[in-house]
């Protein structure tokens, strides 16, 4: 079954390469760079879920909130880098407050958490519409990363999209380092495996939770600014990125960072190839992938069976 699928994808790719190599390579690059954005947002989502089993359905709102805060700071200081930092810090702070103030009191109550985060996302969406209106916001990155880079075969490619890819790779590596090489990372991993045991070992589990939630939320806000620079920011983006994150982690496996990377890659490529080769039905591709994964590997490609 999977052999057949891989063969079909390879055959189609070969046809695409022969038919119009430029379009094929560009589309592939577009898919990978879009995947980079999805990875940044979804990695925070999956991090939080992995440790706390908290499906944070307000993750998209944190994305949009970080983007708006970043825009304000960017306008005020004129620096894009500060805007990125503000996006991360702003959402991280909100995330930490949410964890300490609210989620700590609903530990292990999945349904309550889910209902609460849905409610929160609706309230936040209205508050943001009130504050920032329905306008479209675009960031103003430094000239040096905004132009075009000469590339072999396809002549030029937007620099910023490649920067986005680099950012995602760096974030992936930093997350890996953070989880595998630092003391807090070790605690987080231990917490994923056995929360009760970790607490019994004398670790302040609540502090670990708060840090994780802050990092996860911060990544959403960070994604808001870097994503808003590549595309744009307007009301409704919260739902879009929540949905994208959900699909990515369902495909990749809940709680797995490498799964988020793989899921983001599949979803990004599916979206871009769909748009280039079958624009009308392209949207379906993403969900076909999700359905197939749920049918044959319900825990996700890199997920562990619950």
């Amino acid at each position, binding site marked *: 079954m999977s052999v057949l699928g891989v063969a079909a994808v390879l055959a189609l790719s070969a046809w695409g390469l022969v038919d119009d190599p430029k379009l094929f390579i560009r589309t592939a690059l577009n898919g990978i760079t879009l995947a980079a954005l999805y990875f940044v947002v979804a990695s925070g989502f999956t991090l939080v879920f992995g440790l706390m089993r908290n499906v944070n359905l307000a993750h998209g709102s944190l994305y949009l909130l970080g983007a708006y805060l970043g825009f304000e700071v960017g306008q005020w200081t004129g620096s894009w880098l500060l805007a990125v930092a503000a996006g991360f810090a702003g959402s991280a702070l909100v995330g930490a407050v949410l964890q300490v103030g609210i989620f700590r009191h609903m530990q292990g109550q999945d349904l309550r958490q889910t209902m609460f985060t849905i409610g929160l996302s609706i309230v936040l969406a209205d508050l943001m519409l009130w504050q920032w209106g329905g306008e479209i916001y675009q960031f103003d990155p430094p000239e040096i990363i905004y132009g075009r880079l000469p590339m072999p075969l396809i002549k030029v490619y937007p620099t910023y999209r490649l920067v986005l890819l680099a950012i995602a790779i760096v974030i992936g590596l930093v997350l890996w380092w953070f989880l595998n090489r630092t003391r807090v990372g070790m605690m987080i991993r231990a917490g994923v495996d056995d929360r009760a045991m970790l607490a019994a070992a004398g670790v302040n589990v609540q502090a670990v939770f708060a840090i994780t939630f802050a990092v996860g939320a911060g990544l959403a806000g960070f994604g808001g600014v870097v994503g808003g620079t590549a595309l744009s920011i307007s009301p409704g983006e919260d739902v879009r990125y929540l949905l994208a994150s959900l699909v990515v982690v369902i495909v990749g496996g809940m709680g797995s960072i490498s799964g988020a990377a793989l899921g983001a890659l599949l979803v990004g490529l599916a979206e871009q190839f769909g*748009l280039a080769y079958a*624009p009308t039905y392209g949207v379906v591709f993403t969900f076909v992938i999700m359905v197939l994964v749920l049918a044959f590997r319900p825990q996700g490609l890199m997920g562990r069976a619950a």
Partner: protein
Amino acid sequence: MEKQRRRFGRSIIGAAVALAFAGAVQAQEVIKIGLLATLEGPFAAGGQDGMRGAELALKQKNGMAGGKKIEFVKGSSDATPDKAVNATRKLVEQDKVQIMIGPLSGDEGIAVKNYAKSQPNVTFVNGSSGAQATTLVDPSPNFFRFHTEGAQWMVGLGEHALGKGYKKMYLIAEDYGFPYSQVQGFMASYCAKGGHIVGKSWVPLGTKDYASVVSKIPSDIDAVLVVLGGADAVNFLTQYEQAGGDKPMVGGTITVDQTVLNYKGKRRDSLIGTPSAGPMSDSLDTAEWKKFVADYKANFKDGFPSPSLFAYLYYVSTRSALEGLDAVKGDLSGNQVKYRAALQKLSYKGPAGEVHIDENRNGVGTTYISEVVKMPDGTLGNKVIKSVPNISQTLGLSKAEFQKMGLGSRDVPNCP
């Protein structure tokens, strides 16, 4: 026990009857009008401005029409038909509005028109949605559209593009009813006079990442026809520029309107000179238009530098509904028959020309062809190049000719 329950039941009925009477008394004093626009999704900016237009129309009448106080009950959708119908249902069935104004977007209009058939006692006035089919195919007797629609708005732009020497163009448009209509309005005359649309990309509404669509644009064309709106248009325009696209553009009605020209962020001057067409233009030089703009600016400090298309259309729709109420002195009795007759006969000078409707209850009016210019205050705006008056829904063709062409769709018209 049994007796008690019965008494309880009786008092409930009594209370309900009392409430019903209270409702009837109140209805004499206040007329509730439902107001639906998109405050979420790709047209959120437009929806917000549409609300401003509607409020302005009511403010100009001091909140009264036909001697009664008017109360708006607002609803929101996200440009999808099901959400629009749900929000309309809520306003009509729960909030009991007597007149409904909305929705904003093409396919929403078709869905709400179909719903209107199941509510013959309520009068529906279209907000700003511009799909042809809403009033052309199987119209509903209680659904009125006082402005012209998507295809009418593009009449004359095809000739203008040919005049600029654009003989071969590539089309990028959203995949739903309104852009189908817009593209038909453009292509009907563009194709007939020798232009070629060499390829079409229909993308889903709300597409953010246009990188792969941009990759598909062939290099041997004269210009790109872009029929996208709101956030979609901004995303396409920046990404096209980022990818090194240098072909001139021709825009649909909402591609280069105020919501798009005034996004928050660094201004990009590459849009200057882009022609587009629509039922209004920022720089109309009539007393009515100038008053409209002045009133808009005075009332909405947080609004756009100049009212957007949606503000204008919602203004015309709301004002028509209110003028109709004035004409019948607020009398909505007899299933609103008198009110609807008054709406049918309505004719007044709006901000951008005469407002009146045809036998399908669809607006007949002027289309303005304009180009993007830098305004004296540094913002971007549209400057009128010429106006094409009195455009009917058959785009100036006879009924037979129009029917031969058929309604606009992905493949109609076609001239590769």
